[in-house]
């Protein structure tokens, strides 16, 4: 089980959290003006990387707040967690 550091509550077991999918997927500002292909890309295509993945988590059974995380999908190691609205941390 993963140990996840909620930026509000600290380290808690994975069972307290729900996964929210890839982070920083921006909804097109004017959906009517984008093509079907661009809209499908927003809705369905995901980067799904083998390596560092920016993703949303929600501390459902804790503070109930969403936050973002960077995790290595090959080792499942969390590299950073950060609050919604904060920029994706530069790990380099």
């Amino acid at each position, binding site marked *: 089980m993963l140990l996840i550091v909620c930026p509000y509550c600290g380290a808690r077991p994975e*069972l307290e959290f729900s*996964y929210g999918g890839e982070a920083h997927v921006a909804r097109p500002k004017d959906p009517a003006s984008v093509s079907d292909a661009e809209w499908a890309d927003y809705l369905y*295509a995901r980067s*799904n*990387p*083998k390596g560092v993945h920016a*993703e949303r988590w929600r501390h459902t059974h804790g503070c109930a707040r969403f936050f973002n995380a960077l995790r290595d*999908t*090959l080792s*499942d190691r969390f590299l950073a967690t950060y609050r919604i609205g904060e920029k994706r941390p530069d790990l380099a």
Partner: protein
Amino acid sequence: MQRFSALSLIRHSLGGHLGWQPQWRSPEPKAEYDAVIVGAGGHGLGAAYYLAKEHGMRNIAVLEKGWLGGGNTGRNTTIIRSNYLYDESAALYDHALKLWENLSQELNYNVMFSQRGVMMLAHTVHDVQIFKRHVHANRANGVDNEWLTAEQAKEFCPPLHIGPGLRYPVLGAALQRRGGTARDDAVAWGYARAADALGVDIIQNCEVTAIRRGTAGGVEAVETSRGAIRTRRVGVSAAGNTSVVMAMAGLRMPLESYPLQALVSEPVKPMFPCVVMSNTIHAYISQSDKGELVIGAGMDAYVSYSQHGALHIPAQTLEAICELFPMFRRMRMLRNWGGIVDVTPDRSPILAKTEVAGLYVNCGWGTGGFKATPGAAHLLAWTIARDEPHPINAPFTIERFRDGVVIDEAAAAAVSH
């Protein structure tokens, strides 16, 4: 290829079994192939076999970054069924099931296909309604499926507990008698041996690192850890790694890769006659011919390529199994592992040409790719050889998400399947 038969077994036993040849070669990659398949699982090896056998292409390579059958082919729970709701899915999975029924003879390799029946339990009014709808839809499509009362389900599978006190009572079940199990490793080995005999090069420990495209955009070559290979046709059959491989050609896929766990118990005498699945409380169980209970657990919640997951996922499945089959409460589990499954938004596969000329993809089988192995392989070979889909896989494009013609088995099954 040395054919296997009772006679050859007796003859080789007289020679102390020293006369057997390796079942396939380990060739060095050539500089150029007519077609390259990425991924030597059952789907990829099978595609190479059907390309050689049915489409006359002999200059083919199957590239595998690890060892053949070492991905999800060797990590699944070997359940085979075709009782899907929608017409497109029923046609696709039943195409595979029909190929399964003759696969051992076709390959001269015992894949231990056993049509012992797949029984799906209903625990709620909603389950009863949706399963009866499945039964009717399947029958309309010529796919066998029948409704059983709880008592009939108990008769078909005696270890099942249907008595009072169940938190989720068994209200009935849908039974596909043609469903069953097969030996997963044997499927990969059988296809590898048969493809090799037709001249297909199976190249293990050869990771594709780039896909080179020409000025017109079409595929020209693949770069691998064992050098560049020129080819104008690439079939990607890489399961959980599909997004990574397709990104090499510049394509973003509607896929996410998740760990799916399975586990087996200590081996015991034969006592479990069929496959039982419960979507609602998430239990998948059958008994292998070795005697182990083979149990499918759920997906972990998050995208991962780690091939293992958290223990609370199988624990939840084991709780459900102990409730349904009280006789298993003191059994010990032997091994637990994960495979990386590539999941589409509608839980139906993608088996299609891509916008890149010469690039074909077979992916998105999610948690249920093993049952489709011969069908997917057969249709991928057709699509590569003719540069157009077979009518059965024509609906399973990437563009269905753009065009809004999804095949929503996710909603139909209500869980991963």
